[in-house]
């Protein structure tokens, strides 16, 4: 099968969905003629014109608020982008309280078909306010779906689903993955929300990882496999809805769990996942659930210090070794 980068996969999804539905409208800072600072929206302005693809002022709350306004008319399907996912903090009220709650708080009368794209992650000296992974915050926000793909295949299928969905979607894209290649069929496919993907099967330890960390976990899995330890790597793909069924099935089998994410450890998505696992499968556990996240300090700008934030293969291997000691 052909291999394309995640950037291309995302671009194809946008292209196909914008072709399919003329009520889609895409906007954000430099997403038009320039094609986006991550070059994900290249060519769309030329193809769909300046009304459906437009550059906005630097005004994140207005970008998201406008998307909400478009969506609730029932006549538009907005696909806004924030240039860096970190900036979701600037538009937090619009995302958390408006996008997520507008439908419910008005009695369910309107729909919220917004797909907000958010590039995230540590990617080379971008510093404390351009490197964060803020997705966990939104697990606490009713009404928001959280998508976080790790491969070009997942990215394309999930983005298409997101755009067609009539509810709010936060679509997190790890910047390091834009250049990563993977197999993507030519034919159309969609990936449903709430369906975790088992990236590697194994009987000894369950690793739950998201975004870039799926790859780090797979690297570690190889090393561990050589030592005779077979880990199962589960990629939830969507944190809301969260596919606990797949996770619990794996835990039943392994009894040992490691959760890995780039978010700061405290209050990260791993907290909720760990809490749910012990709630539903305490007596299946042979060891405490371990969490690996980035340290609970802001991300330094220095590229020499960045490696101490991103969970590493070595850390994963060591954590699995520790789990195997139980």
């Amino acid at each position, binding site marked *: 099968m052909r291999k394309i980068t995640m950037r291309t996969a995302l671009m194809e999804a946008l292209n196909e969905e914008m072709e399919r539905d003329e009520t889609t409208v895409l906007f954000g800072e430099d997403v038009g003629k320039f094609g986006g600072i991550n070059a994900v929206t290249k060519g769309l302005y030329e193809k769909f014109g300046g009304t459906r693809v437009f550059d906005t002022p630097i005004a994140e709350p207005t970008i998201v608020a406008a998307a909400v*306004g478009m969506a609730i008319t029932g006549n538009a399907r907005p696909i806004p982008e924030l240039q860096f996912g970190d900036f979701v903090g600037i538009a937090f009220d619009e995302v958390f309280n408006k996008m997520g709650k507008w439908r419910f708080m008005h009695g369910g009368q309107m729909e919220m078909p917004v797909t907000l794209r958010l590039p995230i992650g540590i990617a080379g000296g971008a510093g404390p306010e351009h490197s964060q992974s803020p997705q966990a915050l939104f697990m606490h926000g009713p009404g928001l779906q959280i998508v976080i793909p790790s491969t070009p295949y997942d990215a394309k299928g999930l983005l298409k689903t997101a755009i067609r969905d009539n509810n709010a979607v936060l679509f997190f894209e790890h910047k390091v993955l834009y250049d990563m290649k993977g197999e993507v069929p030519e034919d159309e496919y969609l990936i449903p929300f709430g369906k975790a993907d088992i990236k590697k099967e194994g009987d000894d330890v369950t690793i739950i990882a998201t975004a870039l960390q799926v790859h780090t976990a797979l690297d570690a899995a190889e090393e561990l496999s050589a030592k005779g330890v077979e880990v199962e790597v589960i990629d939830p793909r969507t944190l809301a809805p969260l596919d606990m069924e797949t996770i619990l099935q794996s835990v039943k089998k392994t009894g040992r769990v490691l959760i890995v994410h780039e978010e700061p450890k405290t209050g990260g998505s791993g907290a909720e996942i760990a809490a749910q696992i012990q709630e539903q499968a305490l007596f299946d556990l042979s060891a405490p659930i371990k969490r690996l996240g980035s340290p609970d300090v802001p991300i330094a700008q220095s590229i020499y210090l960045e490696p101490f934030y991103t969970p590493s293969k070595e850390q994963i291997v060591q954590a699995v070794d520790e789990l195997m000691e139980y």
Partner: protein
Amino acid sequence: MAKTYEKDIKLNDYSKEVLTDFYKTMAKIRKFDENLIRLMQEGKVSGFYHSGIGSEGLSAGSIRQNLRDEDYIFYNHRGCNQKIAKGVPLSKIYGDFLGTIEGTTRGLGAGIVHSADPARGVLGQAGTIGSQLGISVGTAYTSKLTGTDQVTVVYFGDGAASREMLHGSLNWAGLYKLPVIYICENNEYAISCHVSETHAVKENIADWAEGYGIPNCVVDGNDVLLMHEVVKEAVERAKRGEGPTFIEAQTFRHRGHFEGDPYDYVDVEVLQGWKDKKDPIKNFAAKLMLEKIVSEEDLESINAEIDSEIAEAIEKAESAPLPDPKRIYEGLFA
């Protein structure tokens, strides 16, 4: 500096029907409000209520005869004035206060904000005042996207105007020439603070719009016909594709910020002056009678009609059941 909108309006330029509609709308708004306060006093409605008494002219004048069902409004949190003028059934608004399933939220309750009636262009409201400034550029952009001539009218108080979002909103609206009409209901106070204590303006709030190249003016918000005319011009401008207009409509609230507010931060004489001399309903009624367009009996019969409409609405809203507690698990997602 913003100009004051003035126009020599002759009652004869309007049909009796239209003039009566303005009167009736204002009277209905006030009676709705008075009855709601009564229900609160009877302990049937709780939560906060921000009475809209005193500024009925602003809502009736701007909406009636200007907007169609397909035009959008974002009402503010002061009374239910704009919702009523836009035609949302009274029983549904009462239902939202009473928490019965007659409400637009089918039992979730809504207070002033969070009622919605999409079929009438009422797309709800945020609990955070001023957030509508951002959302309204989205609805207005949709008119551009789909090529319709729908306009969006967004209401907000003087206090809400100080939210940072105003800048993002005016910039978008001016830039993309969006069909938005900004109506700043300036009643001089944001809870306890006089506008002079919280706003840096050249002279008027409307001056803030000038820098964006957005046509703007100040208008007597208690003159229903003046409100009508100024918004009419703005709607026409918007429909011609010429973009937004910013209208600062001056008014005053007869009651405190919320029911229960001691309202002791306002000069008693100033308040009495507004009640005596600038009541939009009293003044309009007097004018209609002076020019013999309606008689006192006409008005009485209109009022009687409204009274029974309201009684029926309350009866309908009150007699509807409360929702099953499971209601809260419905409607989060489409």
